[in-house]
């Protein structure tokens, strides 16, 4: 019996102008339902590529990916993605952006009024009820990313995929959104896979941290069980020796075991 999300010997080779480039090789990972996994590694190590494989935006060159025992073939709304640069459609309002997703997933079986409720509930969950009818260019970067999260959550996906969702935000906004994401994931029990390069973010949010080696042919170097009690509070964690120990382990992996290869 394998995990809810099962990745078995996945390999990713890209055809480039300079010939074949092996981005990922021999990736094996099992994720339990409701687990929060972060993928961490130096830039260019293929963590986003791995996320795209799970999203179905890329097909693996070799190996297999299963979600609840079904092979992942192409993208689909049961694996919602929050993109790094939010990817909101600028001609739709916040409401319109989320509604587009809701309509696609639930439009066939539910009346319009219910779809509208779902959309509003999703935007309410990320605290954007006041911005329903604003366009993306009228709101801040943090708010855009919240709409992106609302759009993904509104689809009630089996797996929530986040590709460095807070990478472009300032530290304060980022902390606020991390807390919000923690609360939402605890409420919805979503199985979550998140790409990050922020050590604190990884330790704060994850059940397990998947640490990746440097490319080319990147693979999983080590997996760290976080095991800190939930709900977590960033202020209390700062005094927790376990937190610092975990943080130290991730840093050691990134800056001692992996840096030499990169240089």
């Amino acid at each position, binding site marked *: 019996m394998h995990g809810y999300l099962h990745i078995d010997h996945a390999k990713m080779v890209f055809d480039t102008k300079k010939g074949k480039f092996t981005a990922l090789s021999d990736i094996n990972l099992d994720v339990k339902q409701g687990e929060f996994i972060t993928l961490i590694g130096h830039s260019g190590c293929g963590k986003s590529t791995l996320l795209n494989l799970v999203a179905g*935006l890329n097909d693996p060159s070799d190996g297999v990916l299963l979600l609840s025992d079904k092979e992942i073939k192409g993208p689909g*709304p049961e*694996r919602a*993605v929050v993109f790094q640069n939010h*990817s909101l*459609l600028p001609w739709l309002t916040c409401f319109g952006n989320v509604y*587009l*997703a809701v309509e*696609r997933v639930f439009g066939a079986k539910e009346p319009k009024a219910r779809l509208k409720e779902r959309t509003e509930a999703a935007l309410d969950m990320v605290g954007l009820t006041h911005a329903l009818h604003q366009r993306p*260019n009228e709101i801040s970067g943090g708010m855009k990313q919240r709409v992106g999260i609302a759009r993904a959550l509104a689809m009630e996906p089996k797996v929530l995929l986040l590709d460095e969702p807070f990478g472009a935000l300032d530290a304060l906004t980022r902390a606020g959104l991390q807390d919000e994401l923690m609360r939402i994931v605890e409420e919805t029990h979503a199985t979550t896979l998140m790409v990050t390069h922020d050590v604190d973010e990884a330790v704060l949010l994850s059940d397990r941290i998947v640490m990746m080696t440097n490319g080319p042919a990147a693979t999983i170097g080590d997996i760290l069980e976080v095991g800190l009690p939930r709900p977590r509070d960033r202020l209390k964690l700062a005094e927790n020796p376990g937190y610092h120990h975990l943080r130290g382990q991730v840093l050691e992996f990134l800056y001692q075991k992996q840096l030499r290869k990169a240089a």
Partner: protein
Amino acid sequence: MSAVTFNESSLKDIMNSPDTTPLPDAATSAPRPAFFPPSGPAFSAAVGKLLRAALPPLLGMALFVLLWQIVSASGGEHGLPGPAKTWESAKLLFADPFYDNGPNDKGIGWNILASLNRVGMGFGLAALVGIPAGFMIGRFQFLSGMVAPIVSLLRPVSPLAWLPIGLYVFKETEPASLWVIFISSIWPIILNTAAGVSRVPQDYLNVARVLNLSEWKIFTRILFPSVLPHLMTGIRLSMGVAWLVIVAAEMLTGGTGIGFWVWDEWNNLNVEHILIAIFIVGIIGLLLEQVLVLIANRFNYE
């Protein structure tokens, strides 16, 4: 001292360049207190701003009219008609724009409407064919490869070179001039639409893929809105070309229209009317452009 002089003059150059918002310089800001006495600082600032914005174009126009006057005066008896004479003639012309004395003697209003009508129809046909063609060419690489050499070959052809073909095929002048407008204004629409389609950001297409949107939804919610700004640019360029071409085409085909009217007035040696026609063509072209710019801004989301 010389360094200071140099700095001042280069600063003036920068201020006068069109990329720079004009700053209140000595010439306009100094007399302001005299012009606007105690009406409140906000009011006087607003009027001052308006004045600074309006002054350069007004001055330019005044110089233009002056130059025109000098050129016409220096020509003596057979020189170009001056501004005053042309103005008098224009007043007479526009006193009764919609008279109709048979096929070759119609009021200026009818001629303008005839030209606009032709441009509208030729350009409308071009849009009707060009927009879908542009979408297809932008979406399918293979089609783009097929069409590229044809477009590159035909696009630089002078619009009027198409007129004999139109006359031969349609045997009549009216469809022939529509054909000329159609064929010369279709290229900017096709090329800009295709460029817009191939430049739809991958992020938006990824959203569509993750949501598994239907082809129709992809078109209406993502492709079309994303291409619209490019499409509007194409339409604006096309409209410009169509309006350029119509005057030339009507000179050759005759009948009605502002182009025919210019040629007719040349045969009558009525040079004032030719000058008036040039202004009409310019003003209408400007208005068409401005309307399309307004519409285009409506669809700009950035």
